[in-house]
């Protein structure tokens, strides 16, 4: 039974294959994670992460191809710069960076995918549900 909701954005070419590989290898990992397949980690806008938290995710995994392996040559390099900055922004805004995992998982790394998910789930379960973010809609003025 899943205790938390983790949304994972995975690239089509490596990390989705990695997750598939984990399935093919019959590896077990917690069912807290839901996958969203995108074409490239470079496609993952930081606003996706914000949106995930708004809509009830307690944690987010962002995963793409290892540097040098990008199907589009450089998408993951661009993503790396963007997320390096976004992570610092989250920290500066007071959002716990332990709720977001960035990883490189190749299509043959089913084992690594299991580890990434298991570690993230463990961390996020310890932190508890992210009510503090999604519950911010109350009347805040005056």
């Amino acid at each position, binding site marked *: 039974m899943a205790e938390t909701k983790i949304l994972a954005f995975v690239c089509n070419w490596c990390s989705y294959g990695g997750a598939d590989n984990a399935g093919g290898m019959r590896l077990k990992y917690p069912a807290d994670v839901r996958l969203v397949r995108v074409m490239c980690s470079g496609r993952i806008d930081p606003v996706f992460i*914000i949106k995930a938290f708004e809509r009830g995710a307690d944690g987010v995994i962002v995963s793409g191809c290892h540097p040098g392996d990008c199907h589009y040559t*450089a998408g993951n390099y661009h993503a790396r710069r963007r997320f*390096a*900055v976004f992570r610092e922004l989250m*920290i500066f*805004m007071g959002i716990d*960076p332990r709720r977001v995992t960035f990883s490189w998982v190749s299509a043959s790394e089913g084992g690594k995918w299991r580890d990434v998910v298991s570690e993230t789930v463990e961390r996020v379960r310890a932190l508890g549900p992210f009510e503090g973010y999604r519950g911010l809609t109350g009347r*805040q003025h005056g």
Partner: protein
Amino acid sequence: MGELQELARKLLADGAVKVVIGYEEGPRGVRPAFITTPKDADRLVFDERCVHNLTMYLTPTRKHIAALGKPAIIVKGCDTRSLAGLIRQSQVKRENVVVIGARCGGVLKDPSVKAAIAEDTVADRCRGCTIREPRLVDHLVGEPKPAPPGKSLVDQKIDELDAMTPEQRLAFWHEQLSRCIRCHACREVCPNCFCVRCLADKAEPLESSAHLRGNMAWHMVRAMHQAGRCVDCGECERVCPADIPLRLLNRKIARVIEARFGHRPDDDPESTAPIGSFQPEDGQEFIR
């Protein structure tokens, strides 16, 4: 007639430009002016109340201004970095604008009242000014002035925030951002916000209501979209009716980018943008 007014008059009379974008006296301090006839050139003023970054009027999204014809624009040293950014991002062609650089000794914190530049009257963004002589210009007017006094308080505030616990930081931002009414003045005044259709004007993905959750999202997204492009002209913070310290976000990101990628916004239209380029050896200690 002063040097600036004479130059503007000549540019208009010769037909070199159709409009001079500058500053004129308004009911509450100076305001942006669009001078289209030579006889109006004497309305132009330039002094320490000229806080506006006029380069935002050059973006193609401002169709009503583009319709006036070829512009000349008055820029301070700091504004030339915005202009360089617009050229770099293919929003402005250098040859399509006549740039009049005005030597500046800093602008006022409160531009509605005439005052001399001093430690307590100067705008914080002017402290530590790096462009004393604008380079990206066709004409340069005014006498050289001393550098603005004092040290920026923004960096100090960022250090204070960095030293806090995450909960304290979150509380700080909740307090600040709960005041946001989502008027988007910060966007409207920004030379970098030239998207034909802004993410904030769509139903998705940003929540448009002015509640804290939507405000957090908007300000994070705004800061991210400015990453590597913001020149810290401070106009967003100046126009904010809710006094949200937006420069903290912009400046924080600029510091991260400088530390990680060694990039600093400059007035060179040829330089590379840090977000949108990469080095294979960029740091990835945060990636599993």
